[in-house]
Structure formats: structure tokens, C-alpha cells
């Protein structure tokens, strides 16, 4: 035990003796939070819409002004030339082209079904779907307006089934609230993952590990001493991140802070265990970074931070059972947004603990004092 303390002290001394790293460790997460949280959002602030109005009746103008009044749409241009409109879509200036054919007003007036056509730029399928959903919403509203003005009774009949919905746990559908717990997890992990791994490989490159390997130090002692400082730093980063979230973004925090730290601590052990395992197999810092990037990209992109796990193929979900970031993402969001308690997340915590134990055991086992 005393040996571990000597080793841990040495690691801390070395980490903070590097003036740049010593500052970056705490500065980088703050900058990351300030940039990433407001930047990564799926909300659509304004869709540029181009309207081809071949009808030019009060009905078509009514629809246009309805769209104009919606905060989601900005009318880029009204034109009668289909070619010009397609040009705008093609050059990426317009997101939607809405074609109101002549006869639209007449059809509405005579009670025949009126048709309009929307072409949506679907390069980004997510924004396309959202724009489409907003657009249909506006048109449905407009439909209802017409129905009410024409025949109030029919309107009542239409409105017989009313749906009111309420979004739970993130009522305003605020993406900041959704992203922040995830980003918090990633920044806690990334720093420790990279630094711990590089630290270990550097000892090999410089040759200092040779002097350690010839002492009676135990393998678990050395690996533990490599982990502890980055575990502590990771948790301090988490605290800083939470403070930034609270002060700058006013994120809600429903659950127990202690539970959040517990989850992150277990997660950090898993991440550091993996980093050290990779570093025991790497001869140079380049080799380590190469493999580290491979794992980080896969783990982060598959973690469910951007895309829900449920929409991934089944095989991908199976892979995610070994992905510590996926567990952390779920745990963080459940605790922070939903206020989940220990018993709600114990399954995830248990799985994460198992992963942490396995990765750490692999690192200790793979570290060779005798070649």
C-alpha cells in the first residue's frame, strides 16, 4: 500500500511538472463545454423556403403568410419559375421548394381536394424530416383555419380527438440539456484516456520503465498508480464541467450528484484500464495514439450521444454492450434529466463495473516486468 502511495505521488509530480499539461487538464474541459454544448444541436432554427406560387389567389397568399409567421421558416423568395426555384435548391440556398399549382384557391373554394407539392433537400435526412414535419404542421393548421371559417361544425367534428402532448424529462426539448450530460462524459474520459496511455508508453520509450521493472514493485501497484491520478483529475474535470453547465447553461440536475460521480468514477476506471491495456501493447506513442483514436471514435460515435442506441442495428447494439461510453451516456442522462436513483440504473452500473474490472485486469496481465 505504501509503495502505491510513493508511485502515485511520483505520477502527480510528473503530470503537474509539465506546466502546459497541468493547465490544459483543467482548461480544456471548460473550453470544450463552452463550445460543444451550444454548438451541437439538432434544432432547426430556420428553414429557407422558396415558394412557386402559380395560383396567386387569396388562398395561396394565406398559406404563404401562415408560413411566414412561423418561426421555423424564412421565405427566401417567391417566384413563378420552377427552374429558378430548383436552381436555389440545387445551389443549397433553399431547403424547401413549395409548389402551389394554379387552381389551388379554386379547388379549396369548391371543396375539392387541393394539392401542393414540397421538395425537401434531404442531404441531411435528419433536418429534412424535421423541416417536413414542421411544414406539415403549418399546413394542417391552415387546413383547420379554412375548415373553421367554412363550416364550424365540421371543424368541431375534426377536433373531436385532440391530442395534447407533454415532453417529459426535457420539457422544452432543449438540446443543450440533452447534449450536456453526454459531452460531460466524453470530456471526462478523453483527457485521462490519452494522457494515461501516453504516460505509460513514454516510460517505455525513454527507458525509465526498465528501472521500475527491476524493482520488486508489483504489477497491480504500478498500474494502479498510473490510474489513480487520472481518475482524480477526471472527477475534478467532471466537477468543473458540472459547474460550467449550471452557471452558463443552467442545466437541470434532477438526481444525486454523488451517484453521478460514482458512475463516472467506475467509467473512468474502465477507460483508463483500456488505455493502459493498449499502451502495454504499444512500443511507441504513435502506435498508442493510432489505436486510441480507433477506440475513441468508435466508442464515442456509437455511444448514443448523437443517435439513439435503439435506432442502431442489432449487431451494433451488441457491440455497445462492451462500450463504456454508451453506459455512461445513459447513466448521465438518466441521473441528470430524469433524476434516476441507484436502483434505476443499477443494471448499467453493474455492467460498467464488470467492464472496468475486465479492462484493468487485462492491463495488469499484459504489463510485463520480465520480457
Amino acid at each position, binding site marked *: 500500500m505504501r509503495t502505491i502511495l510513493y508511485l502515485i505521488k511520483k505520477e502527480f509530480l510528473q503530470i503537474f511538472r509539465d506546466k502546459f499539461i497541468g493547465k490544459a487538464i483543467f482548461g480544456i474541459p471548460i473550453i470544450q463545454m463552452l463550445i460543444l454544448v451550444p454548438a451541437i444541436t439538432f434544432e432547426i432554427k430556420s428553414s429557407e423556403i422558396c415558394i412557386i406560387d402559380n395560383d396567386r389567389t387569396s388562398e395561396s397568399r394565406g398559406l404563404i403568410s401562415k408560413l411566414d409567421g412561423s418561426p421555423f421558416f424564412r421565405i427566401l423568395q417567391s417566384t413563378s419559375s420552377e427552374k429558378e426555384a430548383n436552381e436555389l435548391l440545387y445551389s443549397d440556398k433553399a431547403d424547401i421548394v413549395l409548389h402551389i399549382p394554379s387552381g389551388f384557391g379554386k379547388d379549396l373554394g369548391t371543396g375539392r381536394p387541393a394539392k401542393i407539392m414540397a421538395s425537401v433537400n434531404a442531404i441531411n435526412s435528419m433536418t429534412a424530416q424535421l423541416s417536413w414535419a414542421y411544414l406539415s404542421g403549418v399546413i394542417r393548421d391552415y387546413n383547420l383555419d379554412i375548415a373553421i371559417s367554412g363550416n364550424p361544425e365540421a371543424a368541431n367534428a375534426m377536433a373531436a380527438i385532440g391530442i395534447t402532448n407533454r415532453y417529459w424529462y426535457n420539457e422544452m426539448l432543449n438540446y443543450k440539456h440533452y447534449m450536456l450530460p453526454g459531452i460531460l462524459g466524453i470530456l471526462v474520459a478523453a483527457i485521462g484516456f490519452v494522457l494515461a496511455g501516453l504516460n505509460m508508453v513514454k516510460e517505455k520509450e525513454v527507458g525509465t520503465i526498465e528501472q521500475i521493472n527491476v*524493482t520488486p514493485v508489483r504489477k497491480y501497484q504500478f498500474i494502479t498508480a498510473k490510474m489513480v491520478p487520472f481518475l482524480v483529475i477526471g472527477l475534478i474535470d467532471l466537477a468543473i464541467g458540472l459547474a460550467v453547465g449550471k452557471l452558463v447553461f443552467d442545466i437541470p440536475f434532477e438526481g444525486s450528484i454523488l451517484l453521478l460521480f460514482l458512475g463516472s468514477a467506475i467509467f473512468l476506471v474502465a477507460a483508463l484500464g483500456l488505455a493502459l491495456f493498449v499502451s502495454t501493447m504499444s512500443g511507441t506513442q504513435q502506435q498508442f495514439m493510432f489505436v486510441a483514436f480507433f477506440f475513441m471514435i468508435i466508442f464515442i460515435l456509437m455511444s448514443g450521444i448523437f443517435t439513439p442506441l435503439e435506432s442502431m442495428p442489432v449487431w451494433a447494439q451488441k457491440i455497445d454492450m462492451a462500450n463504456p461510453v454508451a453506459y455512461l451516456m445513459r447513466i448521465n442522462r438518466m441521473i441528470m434529466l430524469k433524476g434516476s436513483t441507484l436502483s434505476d440504473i443499477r443494471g448499467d452500473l453493474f455492467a460498467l463495473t464488470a467492464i472496468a474490472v475486465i479492462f484493468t485486469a487485462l492491463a495488469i496481465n499484459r504489463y510485463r516486468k520480465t520480457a
Partner: protein
Amino acid sequence: MTRNPVIKVRNLVKKFGSFVANDNLSFEVYEGEIFGFLGANGAGKTTAIRILTGLSEPTSGEVMVAGFDARRQPEEIKKNIGYMCQKFSLYDDLTIRENIMLYGGIYGLGKALIRERTNQLLDRLNFREYGDRLISSLPLGLKQKLAFSVAVFHEPRIVFLDEPTGGVDPITRRQFWEMIYETASRGITVFVTTHYMDEAEYCDRVSIMSEGRIVAIDTPAELKKQYDAESVEEVFVKIARPGMKHGKESETADNKREA
């Protein structure tokens, strides 16, 4: 006087693929002696020292160090030895005191004892004022002396020094050998590799390695007598040159035939 062997090596072989780095080494090192392990660069000295210190596993053969088997109990050996690498390997970004504190701690010495011995050590080496300086700021000679002092800080039974005087000036080399004598006088066995043949004269016994084999082993005086040489250097040249056996020998034989 019956001498007590602290290192016993029988038929040690170490192969890297098809390359034989240590070819059937057998020797003993006795308690308290200064044993010089000589050989040209690439003769296999470092390979052997890494096996003796438990850093590398032998391919075959029997290696006992401080009473423990190098193959099965390398960690037991490590408790009883000190080691100074050929390449300086203390922590450059720590101070002298921090390095000593770390290694003292790893070998299980108490904090007070470490402090006391550190002060003695700094006084002895005459660099008390360097105690809180980063290792990276020290000249090579000081670094080497420090590495040696750290290797014997925990009073091991045997200390292994791999080319300890490589690249240092003659005065520092002399001081270094004074330190080695002082260490041996405390009863610590010193196993030292070198390719400076003048240093071999300072050893109690030496072995000479060439191309993975031990070609001679005895006291410097005995070797000089045996090979009718003025110095160990001459012995070395006599043995190692024509003794560059294998390929080289057949080459010379061919040359003779041509002549």
C-alpha cells in the same frame, strides 16, 4: 577460503529468433567480489545482465541469483539486487530527492530513513545543493553517479552495473570506481560490464565475452600470466581478435591457404 557464490549460471542460452545472443554461458560470481563482465559491443553482455536481473527470460539453462531461480522467481531476485541500466533511466522530470524518495519507497524503506540516507548520499557526492534540482539539468557524470547511488540505496546483496562509465570523463570514471570499491567494501557484490579494458584491472575477477560466449574467466593477474600479456587489454586483443571464431576464423584460414 571457501567462497560463497551469489550468482550461479549453468549452460545459459538466450536466442532471439535464430540469433544466439548468449551461447551456453556458465560461470559463478562470489559474494563480495567485483566481477568484471567484459566484451566488445554486441558480445551479449547486456542480454546476460538482463537475464540475471530478471528483466528477460532465459531460453534455456539454469540461472540462480541471490539463491533464487531467474526463470521461476524473478521477483524474488529483484528484492535482492540493484541495477543501473546502460541508458540513464531515472526520472528526468523529478528532482534528485524525489527520485531517491520514489525508489527508497518502492524498496520499502521508511520515510525518515530515506531522508537521512539521502542527506548522507548528497554530502558524500558533494552535491547537496543539487538535491532539489531536476535531473534533466545535471551533467552526465553526476547523473551516472546518482544512478549508481540509487541502485545501491536499499543496500542490495548484488548490484549490476551495465556500462556505468560509458561517455563520462576520465576523472569522473576514477571517482566512479572509488564508489564501486566503497560499495564492495560494504559487502555488496558488484557485477559490472564494461568495454574499457583499463577498468578490468580494478576487478577481482573478470570474464571476457566474444560473440555470445565466455572465452576466458579468471583474475586479471592470472589472465595476464596465462596469455603472457602486459595488460588485460592485451589479453582481450589476443583472445578476442583471433578468437573472433566462427565465420572470421574460416576466413583467415582461407586467406592462409591462398597465401
